[in-house]
């Protein structure tokens, strides 16, 4: 039973359909083991945004305050897309490499241990 309602066959209105975001899609990005940022960030982006734009422009806004941001070696960074290992293509649009509405991207930089080595 998808809901316990007094109205037979009650169906809820989906609030966060991509159509409601005026041409954008939502992409969440989180930096694993770096808790200076309390949660992953949500970004509304045109689906045609390239991965390079996401990484070098959009993510900078959210993450660059971190003392280790400049030390990230993007060549050895590992990515997860919705929990699965993922190899990004830098000059391909997000949507064309499977990063769709409300996808979660996580990146891992195992050599960077966070501020004071405490995963901050």
């Amino acid at each position, binding site marked *: 039973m998808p809901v316990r309602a007094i109205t037979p066959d009650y169906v809820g*209105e989906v609030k966060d359909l991509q159509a409601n975001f005026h041409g954008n899609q939502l992409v969440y990005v989180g930096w694993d083991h770096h808790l200076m*940022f309390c949660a992953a960030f949500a970004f509304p982006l045109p689906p045609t945004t390239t991965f390079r734009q996401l990484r070098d422009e959009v993510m900078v806004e959210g993450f660059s305050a971190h003392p280790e941001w400049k030390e990230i070696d993007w060549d050895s960074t590992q990515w997860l897309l919705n929990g699965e290992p993922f190899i990004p293509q830098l000059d391909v649009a997000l949507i064309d490499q499977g990063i769709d509405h409300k996808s979660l991207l996580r990146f891992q930089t195992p050599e960077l241990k966070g501020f004071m080595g405490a995963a901050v």
Partner: protein
Amino acid sequence: MAANKLNLKDKYRLLTRDLDWEFSYQERKKAFPFEEFEGIKITDWSKWEDPFRLTMDAYWKYQAEKEKKLYAIFDAFAQNNSQLNVTDPRYINAIKLFLTAVSPLEYQAFQGFAHTGRQFGGVGARVACQMQSIDELRHVQTQIHAMSHYNKFFDGFQDWSHMHDRVWYLSVPKSFFDDARSAGPFEYLVAISFSFEYVLTNLLFVPFMSGAAYNGDMATVTFGFSAQSDEARHMTLGLEVIKFLLEQHEDNVPLVQKWIDKWFWRGAQLLSIVGMMMDYMLPNKVMSWKEAWGVYFEEAGGALFKDLARYGIRMPKYVEQVQTEHMSHQLWWTMYTHGHATGFHTWIPTDEEMDWLSEKYPETFDKYYRPRWELAKQMEAEGNRFYTKALPQLCTTCQIPMLFTEVDDPTQLSFRDTVYHGERYHFCSDGCRDIFHEEPEKYVQSWLPVHQIFQGNCGGPGVEQVLSEYYGMNLGADNLDIKGSPDEQRWNRWKGVA
């Protein structure tokens, strides 16, 4: 005329049961249309017990007396300028959060009990819900009166009700009650009377109010304890509801258990706000959140669930996943780093406070949380007080930013997701994900503040306009760090500190 005085039991029977009537020209089912759709089976409403046997006449008499006492204290508080007697102006921010996050829930509880009471065929249940509904209205009113005094002296109190409906972090308490009130009447009682009032509200009112006393805030202590005096009755109603449902029909047991699992988890996540208030926002601390959880949940709840085992009820499902060791630290860090977008001030705990936290959380504070504050201190010293730049991902169910870590790894955020009808949904925990799975058609409707901002439904275009125009915050006064705030400057002037 002692001989004519009715004893309590007779009086209760006459003034509740005997007020009911039989329906002669309308079907009972039509009079109580909400009674069956949840699947709860009631065979005999007359088995409903109110152990206090409170009748309306006695109710009014004692409530009036409580009010008289309470307002005498409010008057004395105001006449003595007692706002100057609180420990320090940081404390007031806990009260701002209380007014915007908790007091509106009292109003929601009033509405919920008024509605729910109407839906029950049994007169005992109707009378109990009616009294509770009036109590809850009293609670919101006395809280507004008490805190209106602070509104004369401090920022952030001006638009609490408007803010409750709109502000990002206040969607957490608001959606909790919206969820309960949009459920059927039996789920509402299990959610609010039992899981919230009986199992969890002690954690809100008892140690926190004792903390208010310890911080010189007699107005808050008095409204808190005055509300609690009703709460003892609400808790008892909660326990009686559960026993009644379980005794009525064995088919009710799994339904009730499911609701207990759900509402315990929702309540525990919600109360992380109280944990943060106790561990970080009270300058004089009574006990840590973890200790309070030990006394008021583990001990008291342990006894309760042992007692209920005879009905086939077990401990709430996600009890092992409640992270009392971590939640208050993670939440205050979230508020601190979003301090530009909060309707109250935030700050770095003092060195003494951090030592207290290490003592209370010896296994975790120095290892995981002190380093964050060291970073914040360093950035502040460089003239670069840390405010996070982008908006956080939220949990679809509890609506809290997805800030909680894995139960077995405090260095890694916990991510859960599911796909329903082609749409992806994200959750902070197994509990929140499973609640969604039970009723996806309900939670696809979550009004998630971050998504609403991006959809353009909260004004804008920038975050500044959302905060000032849509939320109604006075930017530069209500928000940001306590350091350098108008609150702090006024306080120092009153106290004659340079």
